[in-house]
């Protein structure tokens, strides 16, 4: 089950989005600018990590072991003298790609199941709905741990596990959105204009019910970052010495008293990215695509 609730749309109403306005740069709030800059850095760290840091994330340096943050190493170094900034920057790829895989799995399977349940109704709907109920009665993190037991450890397996665990949330929302839109008058009208059920579903119902599911995607992406780093913190994700945010925290925990930056920096990297990503997605939803 998820910690984020999306309010269901009431049947019979189309969400009022207000008159469309052009987005002006000076109307963008400072918080949004900060979030946009953070996301830009995340993208840069994924695409070209070498631009952000001169050090190799895996190369130890026996002359610089457990150094506090300084101008040479802005985030300090770890117990092998590896530069923490480089490890955090190079770790971005693993966390982000893992979360993206997880969300694609959840979104893909959830959308199909939700549409199928709402479209076929009856026994199919009952079966899918019961499975969703069951999946929601097991906490997401625990469910992904069960799947990790079945699949084995590793970055990809952790991502798949998190993805499968989020299928239920997507299915539930897609199903209820599809049912809501199906009840609207314009759908009845397109039936009367001669559209077959399948045509109407794919051409009219699906596009109109998809926006709510897309906004859930952004929230789930943030959640996936948290879950994947939790799994790798526990040691089920990417194996060392690869840098991954949760793993960096786990490696740093032995030195949490003498070198707290080893835990704080990767931990804050997670918090800041999740906050920035959800802020930017909210901004895009409300201002860019109103």
């Amino acid at each position, binding site marked *: 089950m998820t910690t984020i609730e999306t309010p269901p749309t009431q049947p019979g109403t189309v969400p009022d989005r207000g008159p469309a306005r052009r987005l002006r740069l000076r109307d963008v709030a400072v918080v949004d600018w900060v979030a946009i800059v953070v996301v830009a850095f995340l993208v840069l760290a994924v695409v070209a990590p070498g631009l952000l840091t001169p050090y190799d994330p895996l190369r130890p340096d026996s002359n610089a072991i457990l150094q506090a943050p300084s101008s040479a190493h802005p985030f300090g170094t770890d117990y092998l003298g590896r530069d923490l900034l480089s490890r955090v920057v190079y770790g971005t790829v693993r966390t982000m790609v893992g979360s993206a895989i997880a969300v694609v799995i959840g979104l893909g399977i959830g959308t199909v199941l939700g549409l199928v349940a709402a479209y076929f109704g009856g026994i199919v709907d009952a079966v899918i709905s019961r499975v969703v*109920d069951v999946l929601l009665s097991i906490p997401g993190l625990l469910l992904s741990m069960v799947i990790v037991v079945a699949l084995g450890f590793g970055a990809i397996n952790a991502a798949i596990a998190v993805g499968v665990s989020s299928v239920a949330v997507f299915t539930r929302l897609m199903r209820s959105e599809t049912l809501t839109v199906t009840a609207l008058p314009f759908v009845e009208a397109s039936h009367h204009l001669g559209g077959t059920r399948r045509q109407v579903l794919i051409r009219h119902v699906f596009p109109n019910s998809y926006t709510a599911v897309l906004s859930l995607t952004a929230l789930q992406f943030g959640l996936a970052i948290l879950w994947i780093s939790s799994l790798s913190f526990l040691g089920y994700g990417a194996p060392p010495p690869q840098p991954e945010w*949760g793993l960096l925290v786990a490696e740093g925990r032995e030195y949490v008293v003498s070198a707290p930056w080893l835990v704080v920096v990767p931990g804050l990297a997670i918090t800041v990215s999740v906050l920035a990503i959800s802020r930017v997605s909210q901004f895009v939803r409300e201002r860019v695509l109103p």
Partner: protein
Amino acid sequence: MTRRSFVLRRIAQSLLVIYLSYTLVFAVLFVLPGNPIKDKITNPLNPLPEAVVKPLLEYYDLDLPLWQQYLVTLKRTVTGDLGYSLVNGRPVTEVLAQGLSETLVLASIALAFSVLLALGISLTAVFFPVAAVRNAVRVLPAVFLSTPSFLVGFALLVVFSFRLGWVSSIRDEGFVSYVLPALTLAIAVNAPISQVLIQGLSKAKGEPFVTVLKAKGVPAFTIAGRHILKNGSIPALTLTALTVGDLLAGATIVETVFNRTGIGLITEQAVREQDTPVVMAIVVLVSTLFVVINLVTDLLYPVIDPRITLAARRSPRQRRGSLSRRGRRQVVAG
């Protein structure tokens, strides 16, 4: 639908969900390629002692087809026999009993903390006289939601145990030792409750009855505490019941950080060592607790809010559009 049949139907539904969650976990663990129990017992790289292997092989009937293994273990689970750990051959019930009370105490304290935190945050965010403070506090739930609990845990541990020396990180000091882990867990799970409570309070604050109370000269404090809080907290109550599962799952991280021997740490070890029977038992336990607590909350609604009746009639369209959780919301609304 009468009240009694509603109650009976909800109980039957809950039992079905528990049974299905058992089946689902069995399917995930066993139907996927490979048989973890067999692999584990007969792993050539990590041989178990002969004395442990033989009874385990006999107990799990590994020569039977999968569906018979399913029936055998299901029958035993129903009778309270959860099988044996693949790591040390001890009964799973014994392994779980060891950590259950510890985790239940931790989760209860954490639940109390998160309700207090949610009340504090939402009351400040809605009623505090200075707008800047209200807006600052409003951001807190989002920050809590975005912070991994291991970061919160280590931060609390470093500040209060190592720097200030208020709580020992090793010795068991009774209730005091629970404060930091429970606070960590509470920060992790309280955010959605706070968010819903802020929404509920803001909505109730604008209702006409508040204006009436003001006009009658009721003090603002009484209005907030006695009227707005009561009216605005029903959805938050539902959500509080739903966080029980998250509390138990979150205990995995928190108990690892604080090194406390509870269900969470047992889960962490069982997953690491792929101790399938223990993992299965934990999932069934957590999902049972979750379902039971939600059932009790559902049945308690009329006690909390007399306007709610359990046997609310639903129109056919609504019924078609309801999964159980949505359905509950409609019953509440009705």
